[in-house]
């Protein structure tokens, strides 16, 4: 929430939100918060690469793993902008082709985590009592392990692959949603409009769906956006230690690992994929911040 606007604004501007529409608010967030614009730009770039990667990458087959060993370990140059790796594959192409799996896995993980965590959290928070106790103790069991460690153990059991890494990360991620939603649900369930609904005999599932979940969608959305970035980092970490994506797939974490031994001599093999992970994670974090500002007018300016 850095204050970066160039022109001084009228003092009353802060009260305007009551009168502006969603698009206006989006425009204002983008205008006044240039970091949000950077975040959205990065995400858009990543989405474009993920969708159109095979037409953008200069060497799409190499991006998918085809080797070309006569051209190996070339420094960045005119033909290979970001150099080539140990098997002679174009690093830029591999980064471009890596956007799709990175995005797919992280969206998959966050979706699964939310699908499990949100309903459980809502039920626990709304119903309270023994059910709440049981569900929360279960989430605590999961949360008592560092998330990456739990994921490592899970992958070690399931076998290392991109899919299993996704499943393992989803298993580690859902408790955070459960707890987030539970806290919101608890504070909502005694509010007059919920009590009114209950008094009118609205069934529980409907109250949870219409009143509880709808009213905690903002924190879920913000959390999910930030988490997409975190999952890209976590999936990259698993691939780095050999428990995620496997060669020859173009995974950023795997690429960092492949070039790690030569980081002192052929620095480009590891550096650029590392940069890609950094920018993707940064983008989603900035977007998460911007979303919170967007949905919560009270937080826009301080």
């Amino acid at each position: 929430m850095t204050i970066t606007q160039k022109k001084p604004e009228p003092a009353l501007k802060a009260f305007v939100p009551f009168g502006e529409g969603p698009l206006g608010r989006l425009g204002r967030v983008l205008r006044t918060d240039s970091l949000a614009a950077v975040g959205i730009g990065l995400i858009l770039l990543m989405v474009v690469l993920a969708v159109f990667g095979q037409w953008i990458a200069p060497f799409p087959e190499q991006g998918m793993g085809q080797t070309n060993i006569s051209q190996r370990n070339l420094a960045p140059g005119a033909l290979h902008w970001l150099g080539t790796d140990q098997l002679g594959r174009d690093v830029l192409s591999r980064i471009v082709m890596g956007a799709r799996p990175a995005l797919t896995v992280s969206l998959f993980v966050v979706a699964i985590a939310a699908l499990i965590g949100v309903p459980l959290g809502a039920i626990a928070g709304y119903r309270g009592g023994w059910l709440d106790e049981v569900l929360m103790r279960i989430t605590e069991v999961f949360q008592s392990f560092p998330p990456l460690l739990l994921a490592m153990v899970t992958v070690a059991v399931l076998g290392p692959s991109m899919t299993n890494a996704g499943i393992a990360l989803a298993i580690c991620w859902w408790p955070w949603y459960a707890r987030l939603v539970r806290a919101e649900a608890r504070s909502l369930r005694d509010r007059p409009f919920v009590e009114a609904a209950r008094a009118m005999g609205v069934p529980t599932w409907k109250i949870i769906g219409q009143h509880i979940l709808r009213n905690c969608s903002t924190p879920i959305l913000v959390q999910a956006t930030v988490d997409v970035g975190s999952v890209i980092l976590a999936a990259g970490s698993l691939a780095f230690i050999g428990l995620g994506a496997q060669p020859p797939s173009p995974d950023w974490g795997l690429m960092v690992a492949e070039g790690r031994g030569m980081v002192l001599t052929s620095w480009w093999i590891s550096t650029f994929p590392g940069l890609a992970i950094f920018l993707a994670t940064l983008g989603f974090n900035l977007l998460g911040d911007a979303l919170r500002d967007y949905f919560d007018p009270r937080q826009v300016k301080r």
Partner: protein
Amino acid sequence: MEINTVLSRRAFVTTAMLVVGGVAVAACSPGGNKGGNGAASNVLSVAASAAVTTWDPVRSFSTEALYLGNIYEPLIWKNAEGAQEAFSPGIATDWKTSDDGLSWTFTIRSGATFHDGEAVDAAAVKASIDAAKENGGASFIWAPLKSVEAPDASTVVMHLEYPAPMDLVAASTYGAWIVSPKALAAVKADKTYFDAGVDGGSGPYKLASYVPGQKVVLESYADYWNKEAMPSYTTVDISITPDAVTAQQMLTAGEVDFATNVPLENAKDLAAGGDYKVQEYNSPFNYLAFFNTTKPPLDNVKVREALSYAMPYADIIEIGGQGYGTQSHGPVPKGIFPYADSVPQYKQDLDKAAALLAEAGHPGGGFSLNLSYASENPAEARFVPLIKDALAKVGVEVTVRAELFNQQWESAKADPKSAQDIFVLYYWPTYSDAGADNLYSLFHSSEKPYFNLSYWNNADYDALVDKAGKLAGTDKEAAGKVYREAMDVLYKEAPGAFFYDAHAVSVIPNGLTFGKFNENYPFTVFFAPVRPSS
């Protein structure tokens, strides 16, 4: 005897790769020390990759061999390839076998002592061998042994069930260390005796201190019997550093004098800088692939031949081994009995491969195969994409499955019909008899698959290997000949493809001199012969 090789394999599949994938320096060949003056400041600091799974020399079957070879001695040492004699004396000064090959007599040296002051004698040897046979990590190497006797203080006689090369067994890098009777009694009473980091050896170094996962300190043993081989460095201060990149950084920053393994891909660059030299030796490690012979299309020998011709051997060595290796002649690694240059090799020839596929009824390929490899092995991860690309050129699509070795192996042993089509394996013999180990374990038929993951069943091959195994106890030369015939069958029937024998690569700082790497003790770095370069 192949049964337990897996114990070691499980434990040290990672570090084993570091030895070859990275760098191992070992120096064996006791003797030749002229300047062992033992000044007080004589500390050699080392970054070593090897973890210690146990300090119990009897149970040891893993990476701690790096240290144990300095602390303990076997009855005899197997010499590195190229030495005039096959063996050097260790605790035994002399050894011979009876004419029928059913008994071996070892003469024990006098005047040697264990680090705890006990005398090295025949009774100690008998106790050590009995312990190793009973509950050693590599107890299976003693399978031929019926009983061992110590008729007097300097004589040990082994009685065998059937003739076997007990000289090789006695020189094994696992399960053959001679241990102080005091230590054996102590560990019998308390299984955790060795855990604190104590030893019961007679070698040139004793274990001075041990911090799990961090440090091993060795100190020279002043009363070591072999005054000619006294260590030059009185203290060896070892930081346990599993990560090769970290080890390289410690080395180049001057934090350590020597690193047992640095990333293989950096060896040449380090040498080019002028401060280090690269030494390359044969090792007992090799890479091969099994073809699943139980199901189409690989049940057809023509298809297997075609794939053997399609493999990019030179590229695999160049990329997988970073150039440090030679193409295999069958499953026996170069320098290990019964290796022979005369065993034919396939060379990559895509036209021939395509022709053979057409002959087999698969013109232009058109089928797909799945290949599994051990994901924790960096060399395999590097070269497997090359296999996929090469087979694609003859129209065979390969789906790659990366699995942790244990999972790869478990699913391969389950049901051959539903198992992988191609299994990439990194292998080495437990002791220096690749006939009894590699040739038998990898391709001899068995009721249930173990390491014979081609699931191949060839009566001629089985008969030849069985015959050679029996001959090896009495006539190694004749046994070698029969083993070679067996390897010719392997070439013709192509149940597997033999990629390369990896080299052990050492990056040696200019300031140090090491002995020769000994492929019979591939996990051990011998510190006694290390001295400053003059």
